[in-house]
């Protein structure tokens, strides 16, 4: 209970840095590396993570990262650009996607130079393979565009960037949980640092810097079945949202078709890229009906909805809630050499042999297309009109650029963290000279202190896990693959009731050493805020597009809804408001989306 005795953040726990990066996945580490390279070895660049950097969820990404290198067959970045726009159901800002697909080529080459262990062709070039939604010549058929390191590409990316950050002597603050932003001039002013709790001691630390990057990842833990790590609780979205800043396109959440049944984590799309396919209870390759050209490699939202419909119509395996992935014909060489981790997961968790057995899969909540709105240099937007929040940057899944629109293509998440993490780092380095000196936000420090004290001193209330489980069930069944006005209305009311109940949480652990019980209570509150923004945005959008499918409004409606949602909550009254921002269309006119 040492914490309760203290007033504000002690001067011994104030860290003055040039730039602060929150989150040590691919986006954060690439930004930190870029900052060091631009500003030189004396620059004080701090990376704060609530884990150790090598634990970040970038490391769980499997199949690959796309760039039109053309190493194994003809390819052009413009084709990748088109696929990204079409995959996103035309909600993609095309100028941003152009930047991503164009920069992809140089960025992948840079990663090779940094040491990334890509698989190679016989000629020693970076090898490439097929992936869902990636096509040649504007949709003619699949193309080999995904660069990979076996089936652990994310692990290779995370390791390589962590290694190079060690080389460049980036300062790491491991196991610190960021709880608020420093906004010394109030909600309309600049960002000037963050307030974090050191997990080892439960002490509050203030990090002051002219520039702060949020690269904290997603919030898949609002759903019951998800591929996301336990730690993906939307911290980096909830914090600015609480301070009155907007979140963009939160209704668009990707359900990945091939989650391991019940467990939720992924069997990579690379299993289908290498030739695997889905079958229903009758043994039918049902994707041939839904997507005659791309079949099992249609974009993820299309495949997930097809699985959902097969299950709804009673063709799940044994009438149950899953279908089968068939990879038996791929043979031992492919399964053990190109997909060793996937084959291992099937053996370890199901006790099945992928060479001889069918694998039970179901759609799993995987990726947030929405997030903190930014421009193509990671600068956070204050509103739909495009005003900038000085000193505040975001990149990776926490951000919405928007390059994924209503549905992200496979491999484009790794590309997003790399291209925009790197660009944000460059931008921050360039902006530092013009940004004002950092200052304290005493009010925020006191408020975080009070929140922690309330949780530690509280003796009545519910366990965070109880509320979290209800939230995950509600969001999965009422704001999942398919949605309706009635389900979403119920979901909104239930989330509001859960938020109310969460005002009194019972934290068992009253100590100050590694109090992860307290940490999970903070995380539950972040999840609840993200859920509110998600269902609030989903309820308003009366159309179906990409990762937002409404049974009551089954068609895409470009006349009314070709626009981005910005949701904000009034920090004083708690009222939600929605505004909209037009989609930037520079080259590809929206048309019907078939695979």
């Amino acid at each position, binding site marked *: 209970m040492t914490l309760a005795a203290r007033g504000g953040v002690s001067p011994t726990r104030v860290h003055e840095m040039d730039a602060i990066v929150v989150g040590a996945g691919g986006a954060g580490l690439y930004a930190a590396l870029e900052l060091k390279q631009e500003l030189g070895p004396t620059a004080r660049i701090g990376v704060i993570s609530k884990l150790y950097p090598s634990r970040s969820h970038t490391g769980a990404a499997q199949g690959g990262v796309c760039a039109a290198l053309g190493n194994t067959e003809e390819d052009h970045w413009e084709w990748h650009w088109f696929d990204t726009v079409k995959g996103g159901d035309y909600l993609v800002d095309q100028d941003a996607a152009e930047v991503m697909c164009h920069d992809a080529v140089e960025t992948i080459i840079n990663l090779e130079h940094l040491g990334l262990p890509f698989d190679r062709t016989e000629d020693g070039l970076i090898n490439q393979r097929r992936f869902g939604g990636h096509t040649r010549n504007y949709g003619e058929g699949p193309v080999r565009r995904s660069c990979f390191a076996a089936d652990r590409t994310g692990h290779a990316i995370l390791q390589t960037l962590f290694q190079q950050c060690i080389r460049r002597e980036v300062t790491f603050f491991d196991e610190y949980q960021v709880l608020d932003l420093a906004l010394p001039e109030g909600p309309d002013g600049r960002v000037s640092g963050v307030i974090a709790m050191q997990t080892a001691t439960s002490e509050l630390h203030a990090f002051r810097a002219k520039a702060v990057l949020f690269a904290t990842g997603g919030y898949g833990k609002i759903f019951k079945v998800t591929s996301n790590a336990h730690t993906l609780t939307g911290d980096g979205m909830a914090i600015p949202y609480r301070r009155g800043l907007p979140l963009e396109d939160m209704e668009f959440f990707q359900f990945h078709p091939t989650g391991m049944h019940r467990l939720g984590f992924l069997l990579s799309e690379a299993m289908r890229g290498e030739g695997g396919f889905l079958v229903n209870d009758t043994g039918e390759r049902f994707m041939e009906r839904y997507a005659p050209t791309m079949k099992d490699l249609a974009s993820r939202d299309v495949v997930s909805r097809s699985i959902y419909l097969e299950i709804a119509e009673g063709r799940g395996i044994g009438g149950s809630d899953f279908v089968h992935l068939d990879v038996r014909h791929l043979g031992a060489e492919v399964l053990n050499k190109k997909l060793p981790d996937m084959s291992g997961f099937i053996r370890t968790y199901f006790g099945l042999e992928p060479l001889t057995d069918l694998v039970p899969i179901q759609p799993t909540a995987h990726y947030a297309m929405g997030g903190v709105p930014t421009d193509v240099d990671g600068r956070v937007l204050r509103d739909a009109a495009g005003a900038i929040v000085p000193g505040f940057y975001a990149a990776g899944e926490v951000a919405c650029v928007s390059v994924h629109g209503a549905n992200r293509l496979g491999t484009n998440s790794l590309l997003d963290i790399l291209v925009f993490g790197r660009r944000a780092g460059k931008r921050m380095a360039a902006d530092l000279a013009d940004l004002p000196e950092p200052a304290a936000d005493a009010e925020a420090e006191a408020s975080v202190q009070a929140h922690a004290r309330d949780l530690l001193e509280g003796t009545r209330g519910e366990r965070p896990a109880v509320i979290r489980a209800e939230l995950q069930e509600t969001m999965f069944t009422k704001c999942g693959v398919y949605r309706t006005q009635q389900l979403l209305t119920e979901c909104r009311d239930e989330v509001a009731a859960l938020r109310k109940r969460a005002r009194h949480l019972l934290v068992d652990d009253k100590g100050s050493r590694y109090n*992860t019980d307290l940490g999970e209570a903070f995380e539950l509150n972040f999840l609840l805020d993200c859920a509110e923004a998600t269902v609030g945005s989903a309820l308003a959008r009366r159309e179906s597009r990409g990762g937002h499918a409404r049974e009551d409004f089954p068609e895409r409606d470009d006349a009314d809804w070709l626009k981005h949602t910005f949701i904000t909550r009034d920090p004083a009254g708690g009222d939600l408001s929605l505004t909209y921002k037009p989609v930037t269309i520079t080259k590809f006119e929206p048309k019907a989306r078939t695979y």
Partner: protein
Amino acid sequence: MMNVQLRIRRYNPEADDVPHWEEYAVEAEPTDRVLDLLHQVKWYQDGTLTFRRSCAHGVCGSDAMLINGRNRLACEYLVKDAGTKITVEAIRGMDVVKDLLVDMEPFWESFKQTMPFLVNDEIPADGKERRQSPADRERYEDTSRCILCAACTSACPVFWSDQSYVGPAAIVNAHRFIVDSRDTAKQERLEIMADPDGVWRCRTVFNCVEACPRDIKITRAILEVTGEIGKAGIR
């Protein structure tokens, strides 16, 4: 559903002088992970139980623990294999900070000592990727799979007796660069590994190989490093 008796070695530095065992009864499916059982206790019985975890499927390396007498990842060990009486304690050779959580700082220090990053600042004239044959790429395939979970190092009897030994995980990560045809710092790396606290301390007990959740052939990597030191004529 089956009833599982979970014995956990608990230690709270703010309340306990020494660690002690506590037992918990939990209901489990045969396909539940030991990590799921730890969560059942933490979430619904006793929130003070403390351990690290994140991805829950064996790729982030957070939850190495000594389970039923062997180092494993709690998220990769299923009840059907662990049985109905399961004992869990912190990995050995590292200071227990609280319950199942150990002080990882010395582990990261050893890792950083080995220059765990590619050194080669030359960029090909055409600005494209450096070429590397599939055979050269294959040489570090196995050791590039390390997830830094510390299961190997904390299973090593040499490390238990003297923590100045860099340990198998650090050697695995040194190997990953020593045999990478793109790297230009091989000599320096081998000199670090030839240090008295380096690779020569290994007694080929194979505990590390048994403990590795990634099935990395650690002893083979260590022998390759000693072989490279020999070839380079370092004493």
